[in-house]
Every structure is written in C-alpha cells, then in structure tokens.
C-alpha cells in the first residue's frame, strides 16, 4: 500500500489546512480497508467518517512513530471491534445473509464482480476477516495487528492461517 506521507509527528501538523489535507489524502486508504473488513459499504463509510472525526479530536496523540495511515487504520479497527462488541451485547445485528446479499447487490450494481471468493470472504467471521485484511491487504506484521486488535500475535497468526486454510479447502485451489 503506497503512503506518500511516511512519518509525521503531530507537531509537524501545524495548521488546520495541513491536517485537513492529510485526512483527505488518507480517507480512501481507510475506506478501502474498512470496506474489506466489514463487507458493508454503509458501515465502512460511517466508520471511515468516525475515524476521521476521532483523528481530528486526538491528533496530538499521533507521535510519528508509525505511518499516519497506520494510525488511522488502528483507530478504524478499534471502532469496528467496539461496534461489534456493542452489537453482540445488545443482540442487535443484521443477519450475515442479509448483509452479504446487500453488499453483493451493491458491488454488482457498480459494475464490479462477485466471485466465489468474495462469497467466502464475506462469510468469514469478522474477527477472522479483519486480521486477514490487515495482513494481506494492508501488509502489517502479526505483532502490529495484535497491537491494533488487542490480541496476542500468536492468536492473529492462528486466525489468519485457519482462514486461508478454510478458503483454500472450500475454494479447492
């Protein structure tokens, strides 16, 4: 994943315009990550916007030790995991079939393809699909993903390994 702004400390963000420009440049990266993690366009948009708002409110916490995109993706991931936990507690969530069906319809209506692999990725549990996307779409290490998701790197590795194995068996590559 390309990141033109490699490392910047919050002290380097000197004006509102500069912060706005940074967020604008990174919005697409965050949205594209979230759409793969959630497999839900509306939810991905809501989370991406909420990520931007949190970044504005807490940008002084960004210390430049990681890429700005990594910082934003960490915020987005944590917001998504918090939302999943809330939904589970409230027992208020849309069924997998409904969500997957809506996303398939939207992808097709935009001229995209919906393959068997899309179906399999969509059917994966969120806590498995998220690290899979972080590893093989964003390119983070197991340690970085573990830090983002507050789970042990070994757990991340195991989830990703089992997800790939499951896809490979069902897809019969």
């Amino acid at each position, binding site marked *: 994943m390309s990141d033109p702004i490699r490392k910047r400390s919050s002290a380097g963000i000197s004006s*509102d*315009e500069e*912060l*706005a*420009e940074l*967020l*604008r440049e990174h*919005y*697409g990266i965050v*949205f*594209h990550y979230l*759409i*793969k993690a959630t497999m839900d*366009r509306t939810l991905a948009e809501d989370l991406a916007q909420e990520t*931007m*708002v*949190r*970044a*504005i*409110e*807490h940008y002084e*916490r960004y210390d430049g030790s990681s890429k700005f995109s990594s*910082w934003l993706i*960490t*915020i987005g991931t*944590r*917001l998504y*995991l*918090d939302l999943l*936990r809330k939904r589970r507690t409230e027992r208020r969530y849309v069924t997998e079939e409904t969500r997957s069906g809506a996303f398939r319809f939207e*992808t097709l209506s*935009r*001229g*995209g*393809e919906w*393959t068997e*692999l*899309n179906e399999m*990725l969509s059917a994966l549990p969120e806590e498995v699909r998220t690290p*899979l*996307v972080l590893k*093989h*779409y964003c390119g983070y290490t197991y340690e970085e993903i573990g830090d983002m998701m*507050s*789970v042990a790197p070994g757990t991340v590795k195991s989830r990703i390994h089992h997800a*790939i194995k499951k*896809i*490979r068996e069902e*897809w019969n*590559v």
Partner: protein
Amino acid sequence: MTVRSDETKREDDTIQAMKETWARLDDAFAVEPAPLSAWTALVRERKRLAKRKLWRDLAILWSIAIPAMGLMLLLVTGMPPLFWMFQAAAAVAGIPWLVGEIKRIARSGGRRTTP
C-alpha cells in the same frame, strides 16, 4: 519436501487470488474525497466542538467538586462522626464499583479507540 512446497504454493495462490479480489472491490468502490475546503471546515468545526465539550466538562466537574468539598469541610469541622460515616459509605459503594470497572476494562483488553 514436495508436499510442503505444494502446500506453500497453494497458499500463495489463495493469497494472490484474495489480493486480486480486493483490488477489484477497490475499483468498484472508487473514492472521490470531498474538496479540501470541506475537510478544512470539518477540522475547524470538530476542533471547536471538542473545545466546547472540554470547557463544559470542566464546568460540570467544578460545579460538583466545589460544593462537595465545601460540604466535606463543613462535616469534618462541625460533625466529624457524620463525616466518617459518609466516608465509610463511600468506600462500601465505591470499592465494588471500582473492582467492576477494572474487570470490565480487562475484559475489553484495556483498549482505547485512539492509540
């Protein structure tokens, strides 16, 4: 050795296919961010709201803290038994609440939304 390399190849093929699928999704859901002026307005608005919330929280904190401290001072100087009864009641109610909060935070992995 052959079985192992075959397994690795199949895994690599799966990962490659996933990457291609994700790339097609990126194409289908292309992003056209709002103009910079809209982002600048958003940054200014959110900063203004955050500042206002900070002042409001500070005002609420002190509007509760000052009367509470005043009451405690009155009690400790005028009615010490009542003061210590109040302290004991606060400890009895507060410690289980604190333990509950610590457990809740530990269950959620102690995660904050922003790193």
